[in-house]
């Protein structure tokens, strides 16, 4: 390969200056003279039928411009995977059972007024008459026949997803096992807690298109869903992404977009909304909580012979992306290991909880918490080192996955395991004296180390025809003066616009400062897919390379400007066979391994991460500085998931609906030391070899932490977050 000029350099982010100086405008910062303000009336009931919405008093408040209810929405339904959610719940809905409220964040009315305060006052004057229905919050109970049905319009069961893997002979497999570990795990909900709550503005653009500026992850599906609900053609809807303050999967599903567009359609005036933090927490999806029962067996040589797993996931009130998230739980339920006999059942179940949504890792962190915990327990029971045990069973090139197809290579799980173990000094003799942070020996302070690994596919798959569009225009006369790069991707804070400009520079041979990116506007960009599934660098890089090659050819042919578009199609995948799971689910994977050292105060139950070592195969670090940022960010987010973030509900109501009660890590909580190993084994179809990264370092941290806690205390924790209370209970101290 020739020397790379732009790719592989820790280039400064193109959006750095604007963001650190505050010049950059996020969704909530946008304003247009004469704009109106919107507030949404949430149902705040977990399960009820809306009998009547009385807006008489509210509409009379001075300054109120309009109030919309279910009857005002042309096609009162939306959803990324399934149109099962009313835009507004209430009588007169165009959708059957559109008057049913299925979780507290269901929306009943949109109030538009001259100021936000007036809209809020009017909202509080609306009276809703509810007929309360039995509330179903336990997914296991919801699966039972006779349970209250959340979606009577869809059928007679609350089970909305059931994926299976049947490989080999599970009974025969267990009969050959010398060591079996059987356990049950419960993984919690996690709130995305992006810094910027749901917000945005909508208006008519110069061509009369309803234009919605709300941070999202996939402009095209936002556009299509808005168009569907308003019963308009998609080309009359324009979606533009301003700067986005974090997404993590949570912005894949719509929040305020349809109602903003509806108001503009009816009023022909700009309208703005900003959700409060509380609205953000109750009104939008979360990471799926799951209950996982698992039985794994290994033979006397330390080889896994059988794994049987049942996962029950709380899908909450609506489908969102549960089917896809759980597909990923299914495929990762084997861990990155070779297992000859497998039986996996993964259920998604509708309940009256806040919907389960896409969230960094997309179903993999939950399944891998089980798989890696099972691995650590098996290793302990057999008296094998957990790293050695993983080496024995790690997937290798050419291996057949549990779904009957070969894992796309190169498979580097063994490599990252070795890199993490070596950087951590896993096999060095350890000084296990309880030494506190102050350096003094204190008997109640104990330390432990833990190991775990993970893998994650890149991109959308399971039969989806994964593709990504890019356009490149070369301007100038004798030499290229300027490059216009057009792309649909969302910059959600991860730095992908910087990476795309680096890749365009490399592909065209033109310096980065001459490249102008026009992104995230359905008026100028085609479908580039979602900024999720660890896909954007991989997919956009291939699209940019394709477009650049075509444009350069035109340039050579003296066409000015030399403009070309390219759609990159990833290799085809297939969905699960319904009975066996056999499929070609994915076209590329990336691998990670982490080792953790922590310290526990046995008196207070407080856990501190001393060191996290993370070895990640990224294929090619297009921008090593951003890779480091992604890894550190993922680890901190996973630490919050594992230790701090304690989402509490009662009867469908969210008790932790503020950041004062739902605690996320701050600078004082994060690990003292994060050490990275960036492994670069190129993916043969990745741009410059790049694989996916965004989700990867999130995956193994929870099981590595519980393994370290076990090392320190001898107690296995099968549930988290590891709050002081849970730890002290586990230790038998309270």
């Amino acid at each position, binding site marked *: 390969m020739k020397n790379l000029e732009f790719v592989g350099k820790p280039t400064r982010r193109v959006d750095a200056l604007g963001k650190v100086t505050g010049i950059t405008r996020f969704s909530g910062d946008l304003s247009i003279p004469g704009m109106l303000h919107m507030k949404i009336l949430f149902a705040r009931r977990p399960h009820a039928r809306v009998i009547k919405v009385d807006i008489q008093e509210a509409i009379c408040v001075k300054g109120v411009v309009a109030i919309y209810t279910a009857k005002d929405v042309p096609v009162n339904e939306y959803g990324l995977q399934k149109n099962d959610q009313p835009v507004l719940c209430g009588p007169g809905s165009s959708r059957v059972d559109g008057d049913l409220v299925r979780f507290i964040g269901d929306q009943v009315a949109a109030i538009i007024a001259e100021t936000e305060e007036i809209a809020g006052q009017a909202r509080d004057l609306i009276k809703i008459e509810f007929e309360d229905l039995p509330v179903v919050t336990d997914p296991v109970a919801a699966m039972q026949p006779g349970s209250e049905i959340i979606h009577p319009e869809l059928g007679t069961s609350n089970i909305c997803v059931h994926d299976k893997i049947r490989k080999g002979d599970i009974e*025969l497999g267990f009969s050959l096992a010398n060591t079996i570990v059987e356990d049950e795990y419960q993984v919690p909900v996690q709130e995305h807690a992006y810094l910027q709550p749901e917000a945005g503005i909508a208006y008519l653009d110069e061509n009369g298109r309803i234009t919605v500026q709300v941070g999202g992850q996939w402009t095209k599906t936002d556009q299509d869903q808005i168009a569907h609900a308003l019963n308009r053609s998609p080309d009359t809807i324009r979606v533009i992404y301003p700067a986005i303050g974090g997404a993590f999967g949570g912005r894949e599903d719509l929040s305020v977009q349809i109602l903003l567009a509806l108001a503009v359609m009816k009023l022909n005036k700009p309208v703005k909304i900003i959700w409060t933090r509380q609205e953000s927490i109750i009104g939008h999806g979360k990471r799926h909580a799951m209950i996982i029962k698992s039985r794994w067996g290994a033979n006397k040589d330390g*080889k896994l012979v059988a794994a049987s797993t049942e996962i029950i996931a709380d899908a909450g009130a609506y489908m969102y992306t549960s089917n896809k998230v759980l597909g990923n739980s299914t495929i990762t339920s084997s861990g990155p290991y070779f297992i000859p006999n497998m039986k996996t059942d993964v259920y998604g179940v509708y309940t009256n909880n806040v919907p389960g949504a896409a969230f960094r890792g997309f179903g993999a962190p939950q399944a891998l918490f089980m798989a890696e915990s099972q691995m650590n327990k098996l290793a302990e029971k057999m008296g094998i080192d957990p790293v050695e045990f993983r080496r024995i069973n790690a997937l290798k090139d050419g291996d*057949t996955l549990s779904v009957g*197809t070969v894992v796309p290579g190169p498979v580097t799980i063994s490599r990252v395991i070795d890199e993490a173990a070596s950087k951590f000094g896993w096999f060095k003799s350890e000084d296990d004296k309880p030494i506190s942070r102050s350096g003094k020996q204190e008997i109640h302070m104990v330390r432990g180390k833990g190991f775990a690994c993970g893998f994650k596919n890149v991109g959308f798959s399971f039969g989806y025809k994964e593709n990504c569009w890019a356009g490149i225009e070369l301007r100038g006369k004798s030499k290229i003066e300027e490059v216009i790069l057009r792309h649909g991707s969302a910059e959600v804070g991860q730095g992908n616009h910087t990476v795309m400009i680096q890749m365009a520079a490399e592909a065209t041979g033109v310096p980065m400062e001459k490249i102008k990116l026009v992104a995230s506007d359905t008026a100028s960009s085609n479908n580039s897919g979602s900024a999720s599934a660890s896909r954007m660098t991989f997919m956009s890089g291939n699209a940019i390379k394709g477009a650049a090659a075509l444009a350069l050819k035109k340039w050579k042919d003296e066409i000015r400007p030399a403009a070309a578009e390219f759609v990159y199609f990833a290799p085809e995948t297939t969905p699960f066979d319904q009975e066996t799971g056999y499929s070609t689910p994915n076209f590329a994977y990336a691998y990670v391994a982490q080792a953790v050292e922590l310290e526990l105060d046995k008196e207070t139950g407080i856990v501190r991460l001393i060191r996290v070592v993370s070895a990640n195969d990224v294929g090619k670090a297009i921008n090593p500085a951003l890779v480091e940022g992604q890894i550190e960010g993922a680890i901190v987010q996973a630490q919050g998931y594992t230790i701090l973030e304690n989402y509490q509900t009662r009867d469908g109501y969210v008790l932790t609906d503020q950041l004062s009660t739902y605690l996320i890590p701050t600078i004082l909580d994060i690990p003292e030391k994060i050490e990275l190993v960036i492994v670069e084994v190129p993916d043969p179809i990745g741009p410059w070899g790049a694989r996916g990264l965004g989700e990867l370092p999130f995956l193994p941290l929870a099981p590595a932490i519980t393994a370290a806690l076990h090392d320190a205390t001898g107690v296995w924790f099968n549930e988290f977050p590891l709050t002081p209370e849970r730890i002290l209970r586990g230790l038998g101290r309270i």
Partner: protein
Amino acid sequence: MIRGGGDLASGIAARLFRSGFKVIMTELPKPLTVRRTVSFSEAIYSGFTEVERIISRRSSSIKEISITQMGREIPILVDENLEILKSNKYEFSVLIDARMEKKPEIKSLYKSVPLLIGIGPGFTAGVDCSVVIESSRGHSLGRIYRQGKALDDTGHPAGDPTRILRAPMSGTILTEVKIGDLLESGSVIAKINGVPILAPFTGLLRGLIHDGVTVQKGMKIGDMDHRSDINLCFSISDKAMAIGGSVLEVILSDTNLQPDRRDKPKL
């Protein structure tokens, strides 16, 4: 279709399987394989086995065969007389006889399949098979004979002749060690009717027939290796890889099997 599930047959199966061929193997009800850790025949005893991360699974019905193949595994059946050839469910393009019988077959299946490949001595190309592949170690290993025979069986494999363990008498063998063990010279490997079979030298036990099998006097029941690298026991040998590569060449170069590869007549 591969007849036999021993180490050479398994090496051939692995190479074909990895190249994308659908492979079915057949074995005896009680396979006599000695290198069982690298042989798919072991699945007959245990239900399934794994060689270099390829799984073979004992399958006894058409349904089981198709489930096993769908899961990208190799079905292996007990089918001494190849009854499956009579099934109209399958149309086998290639039959590979890798049983290492080392003697001519009484009733050859030549012409009952488009391509019959014989491995090792006993076969004559064009007479009882289409092609013969050399299985004897040395310069000619893996050579493809489209006429004639492979080198005759000398009865004396290359290297130290004592490495091959043979049954001193007929009877039921009871094994006392496992493949991969490093054995001291003179230690007991197995017993037949109470008579111990001893390690001829200090080294690695690379092959040992399945416990409880009835053996005939003089039958090969195991082998040892002077080298001590345990990995030798768990990966396909150079010899099996070489023969497997030759089988692949024979199949890919067969113009009858590959109509689109057939040379077009020049006009």
